[in-house]
């Protein structure tokens, strides 16, 4: 059982990484970026190609992948999402979802066009290496790296949001956009950078996915599903809660799969989702 919890924690750390970008963007800018899953996929493929063409270790390639996704996110925000900024909130959320949905379609099919639908995975030399901590308790090395990355991300985000002027300006504009403008904050540019940052976060998750699981062009939706469940569980914007929700989902999934089998794994998440909504709506 402890083994299951360990795997659950590793999975959960990944889920948190997948969800954090989506959660932050929605909390600050009220954009539900449906294309978030596709950003993850791009990150995964970037790691794959960097590994196969340049022999670059995936975890080492993370900064580079972040830069790539940052650029892509910034370009897409500038070109598409920023045009929705002026709309009233209900319409903005709706239209940003539609645009995101369309974007997913475009990106995923571009990926199929360029890279075929084949499943790829990154298998560095230390794949499968395991640490035997106690009898019956195995810690995969990669899993530990994942947890490490997740912790690093949490810590860095926390520092950025509370200690830097940029982070404070982000939090401020999320609470009162007009007042943010009155402080001299260029709210539009802040949003642009923040969106690009969250795309970079998706990229990190994508690298982890490529190593720990696998990537193929339509995988984005599956990760998006997890991110959505966590978003609903955790509320949005609080970093710690997102990761905690991720861990919770990871562990619950792991435990239920043990008892009910892997066939119904997704149903677990869906049930949690429905239960949380039921609770919220009463």
């Amino acid at each position, binding site marked *: 059982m402890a083994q299951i919890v360990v795997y659950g924690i590793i999975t959960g750390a990944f889920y948190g990484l997948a969800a954090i970008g989506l959660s932050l963007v929605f909390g600050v800018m009220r954009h539900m970026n449906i294309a978030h899953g596709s950003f993850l996929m791009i990150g995964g493929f970037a790691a794959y190609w960097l590994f196969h063409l340049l022999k670059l270790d995936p975890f080492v390639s993370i900064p580079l992948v972040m830069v790539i996704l940052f650029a892509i996110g910034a370009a897409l925000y500038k070109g598409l999402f920023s045009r929705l900024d002026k709309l009233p909130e209900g319409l903005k959320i709706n239209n940003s979802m539609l645009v995101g949905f369309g974007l997913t379609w475009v990106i995923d099919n571009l990926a199929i066009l360029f890279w075929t639908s084949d499943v790829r995975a990154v298998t560095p030399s230390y794949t499968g290496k395991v640490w035997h901590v106690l009898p019956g308790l195995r810690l995969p090395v990669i899993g530990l790296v994942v947890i490490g990355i997740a912790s690093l991300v949490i810590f860095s985000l926390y520092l950025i949001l509370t200690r830097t002027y940029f982070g404070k300006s982000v939090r401020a504009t999320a609470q*009162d956009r007009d007042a943010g403008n009155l402080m001299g904050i260029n709210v539009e540019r802040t949003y642009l950078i923040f969106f690009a940052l969250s795309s970079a976060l998706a990229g990190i998750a994508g690298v982890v996915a490529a190593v720990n699981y696998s990537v193929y062009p339509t995988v984005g939706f599956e990760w998006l599903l997890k991110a959505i469940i966590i978003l609903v569980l955790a509320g949005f914007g609080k970093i710690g809660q997102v990761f905690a929700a991720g861990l919770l989902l990871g562990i619950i999934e792991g435990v239920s799969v043990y008892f009910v089998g892997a066939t119904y794994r997704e149903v677990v998440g869906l049930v949690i989702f429905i239960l949380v909504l039921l609770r919220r709506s009463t």
Partner: protein
Amino acid sequence: MLEVEQIDVYRGDTQILWSVSLAAEDGKITALLGSNAAGKTTLLMTISGLIKPWRGRICLEGQQIDKQPVHKIVELGMSMVPEGRRLFPEMSVFENLELGAFTRKARETKDRMIEEVFEIFPILKTRKVQMAGTLSGGEQQMVAIARALMSQPKLLLIDELSLGLAPLIMQHISETIKQINMTKGLAIFIVEQNVFMTLEMADYGYILENGRIVGEGEAKKLLQSEEVKNAYLGIGEV
């Protein structure tokens, strides 16, 4: 300092301001009076750049600002205490003040300004780490003013200072504002419903009714004018 020339302003399809012109002098306190739906807040929001005028010009120290984005106007030296304070509720008093000094120029003098602001409003020092949303109305107003001062503006806009404040606190704050004006020579443009107190504080005043300027003059003269007395002092007397 500030020149507003014949601006027409719309909210949606409705015209709120009709050919409004006024000026705020360097180093002086200029007041804008008018009853509730006269358009005072719309005017301030237009001056600060949150709304753009349909016609007309607004100049700050001779530079045209009506087409500039809000944050640029702030960088040029205008600061606003918005109606309802508009603090960042889930951030501490200290963080709110820090954000007041967001512009590059202001960040250099941030620490000094925080000291200064704590001298003007000593009570804020004790509330430094408290969440801004949990303060009382009067304290929030002080934070809002302090925050606006952090960027060392040339022109300070104040929208509805007295809203929701007990008279005694209102008195204290308006005296503090008068003091700030005198010691720093800061030009202040204040929009108010509380006519008596504002005219006592101000040097010059304008009266806005139904989106049009219907009167102006030196504050002392306005206080004594028949129209103002009849129209407002019955309502706005402290």
